[in-house]
């Protein structure tokens, strides 16, 4: 929860009041787990924020909101970060067998670079959390499919990321235009180098265009040098971390929001959701959750060798179709209505608490009737019954 600065904290703060209108919610704090009928664990990839939540999950399994599918950074922090090399090796072996253990040894010995920095998506290390989860809430088909591939057999609820209500604020706009905005941490995985390259070319044909970068540059990521190298000192404006109100004001003042990333950890983007609420056209990377956005609200760019060319085209197309894309974005944001999302959360929790009894009752009645008319448990007819029950999620 805020004041922590993270997308998941913002998400939780948005959701909590709506959830409280439907069910009694006790907010767990580090070291002070409340008593409840069911635990709801928000798990993301940041060890500082989520290690204690996973530790509580170990003590008391419950429903996990899997904000990131890739938890390598979290697991590394909970193991190597605490001088627990064997723990990291066990997690790597669980994820990828003996090869994983050997790679883990390579990391510990310094023979290869940290995998959480260079190849986290290949070693998601989410196995323990999946084992502990009595049910999963995910925000994308992408993550739902990945967890099934990993053999997760419990209930998975696909719940959209809730949309913020449109705030009543005045836009803070840069001089010139079109203004392209990118919000969030500034680092290579947010494709900032590629965005700068693309913007430099976009700027050639739109001399008054501006690129607004809002967020802190990652340590070691020399943003100022890159901006100078592209000769964009006049056209690019960087603003460090801003509070929620200013974030909305700045976003309201741009013409297009670029929300790029690769590789994806299976996360959603609060920035993209805010942009939809404001009716801003989106340019996104064609990966994970972002690929699932409808084409009429987002231009999608594959993070491949043609990425910069495609980004230039996407900036051109989205500025040209800003009104139509913005309207479609607002309509989509309405489908991410906060009350509906909260109700879907409660559905997941209610099914977790009482679902087994319902499934047992359905199975008992169906199997009794099937037996009465001579359908044997291992017969083709029984299999057909099972398929029909699966299809309508009984």
């Amino acid at each position, binding site marked *: 929860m805020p004041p922590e600065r993270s997308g998941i904290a913002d998400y939780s703060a948005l959701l909590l009041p709506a959830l409280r209108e439907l069910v009694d919610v006790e907010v767990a704090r580090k070291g002070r787990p409340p008593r409840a009928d069911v635990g709801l664990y928000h798990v993301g990839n940041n060890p500082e924020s989520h290690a204690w939540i996973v530790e509580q999950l170990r003590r008391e399994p419950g429903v996990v909101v899997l904000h990131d599918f890739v938890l390598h950074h979290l697991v590394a922090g909970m193991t190597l970060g605490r001088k627990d090399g064997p723990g990291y090796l066990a997690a790597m072996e669980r994820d990828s067998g003996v090869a994983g253990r050997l790679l883990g040894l390579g990391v510990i010995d310094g023979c290869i670079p940290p995998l959480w920095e260079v190849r986290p998506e290949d070693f998601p290390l989410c196995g323990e959390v999946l084992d502990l989860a009595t049910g999963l809430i995910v925000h994308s088909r992408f993550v739902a499919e990945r967890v099934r591939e990993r053999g997760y057999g419990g209930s998975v609820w696909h719940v959209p990321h809730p949309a913020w209500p449109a705030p009543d604020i005045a836009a803070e706009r840069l001089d010139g235009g079109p203004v392209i905005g990118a919000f969030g941490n500034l680092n290579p995985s947010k494709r900032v180098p590629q965005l700068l390259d693309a913007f430099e070319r976009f700027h050639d044909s739109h001399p008054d265009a501006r690129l607004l970068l809002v967020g802190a540059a990652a340590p070691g990521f020399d943003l100022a040098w890159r901006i100078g190298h592209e000769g964009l000192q006049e056209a690019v404006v960087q603003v460090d971390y801003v509070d929620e109100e200013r974030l909305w004001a700045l976003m309201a003042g741009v013409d297009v929001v670029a929300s790029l990333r690769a590789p994806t950890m299976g996360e959603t983007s609060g920035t993209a959701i805010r942009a939809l609420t404001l009716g801003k056209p989106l340019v996104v990377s064609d990966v994970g959750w972002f690929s699932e956005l409808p084409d009429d609200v987002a231009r999608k760019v594959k993070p491949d060798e043609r990425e910069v060319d495609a980004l230039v085209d996407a900036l051109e197309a989205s500025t040209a179709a800003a009104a139509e894309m913005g309207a479609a974005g607002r309509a989509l944001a309405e489908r991410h209505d906060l009350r*509906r999302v909260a109700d879907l959360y409660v*559905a997941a929790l*209610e099914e977790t608490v009482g*679902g087994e009894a*319902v499934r047992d009752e359905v199975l008992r009645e*169906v199997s009794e009737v099937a037996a009465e008319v001579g359908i044997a448990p291992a017969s083709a007819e029984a299999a057909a*019954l099972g398929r029909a*029950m699966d299809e*309508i999620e009984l």
Partner: protein
Amino acid sequence: MRILVCSPQVPFARGGAEILAERLTHELNEQGHEADLVTMPFKWYPGAKVLTHALMWRMADLTEVDGRRVDLVIGTKFPSYAVKHPNKVVWLVHQFRQAYELDRTELGQFSESDEDRALRRAVQRLDRVALGEARKLGAISQNVADRVKRNLGLDAEVILPPPQQLAFRCDSYDDFVLSVNRLDRAKRIDLLLEAAAADGSMRLVIAGDGPDRERLEEVARRNGLDGRAVFAGRVSEGELADLYATCRGVYYAPVDEDYGMVPYEAFMARKPVVTTRDAGGPLDIVHDRETGLVIEPRAEELARACRFLLDHEEEARAWGNAGRAIAEQVTWERVIAQLLS
């Protein structure tokens, strides 16, 4: 096309949904299709029976019958739309409302037990699949479409059903207000009786029967309406057409109705309709001071509205005529074109 219309049946009960499914089947045949009605008994209690009865529909193989392919199935009311077919259209009469807006009301079914809460969610989950997989999702009113959007996030096209075929005509604007309804609490006949009591001289004819009749007759007696409120009971089609033809206006104000055929029938007889702001489906076509009067559900307001119609025949006539123009647009040709498009 070979088309199967799917509709559940509650034995010994017959209402608008059953009539609608039968009529759709008939009209499809009239338009040259080969259509038949498929029905199964529906019981929604106790426990998980509501789910196993949906499973019965899912298990029914309607892709072909007797070696001949079925081109299209049309699901209507819960749980008939759980049927599986590669070309499934749903014309949604209503979902299992106890799992949605009726939950935790006096008309609800599910208790606060963990199992009942999960059961309710299982119905919603089933709906999400069964309605979401339909090639086309239609709804019988804006109210039903709004609910499915609100409940499940699904978009449904509004396909309004035409009224039943009576010998609709307008003979006169006599000085009585007509109510045509099944007599149960949700239809809010009490409100009309209280309004008549408040007015002092208003005459009512209440057509229809139902479990609440005895109580309503007692309410009428208690309010001194003997002679002014006539409980006509279940009337024949001819008698109903006569009542529409001669009344001054029609009262129709159920709570959050899915659709409501009565306003269309009233309009076909060129009679205005008095309804309430919370009536749901009727608000699709009853527009205040255009085709009738739309009021808050309070007896004194209803008394004023009915009195206005009784005292202003010209307005009643004009609004009834305007209603007729709207109701005439709602035809079976149009319904079938929308369903098959």
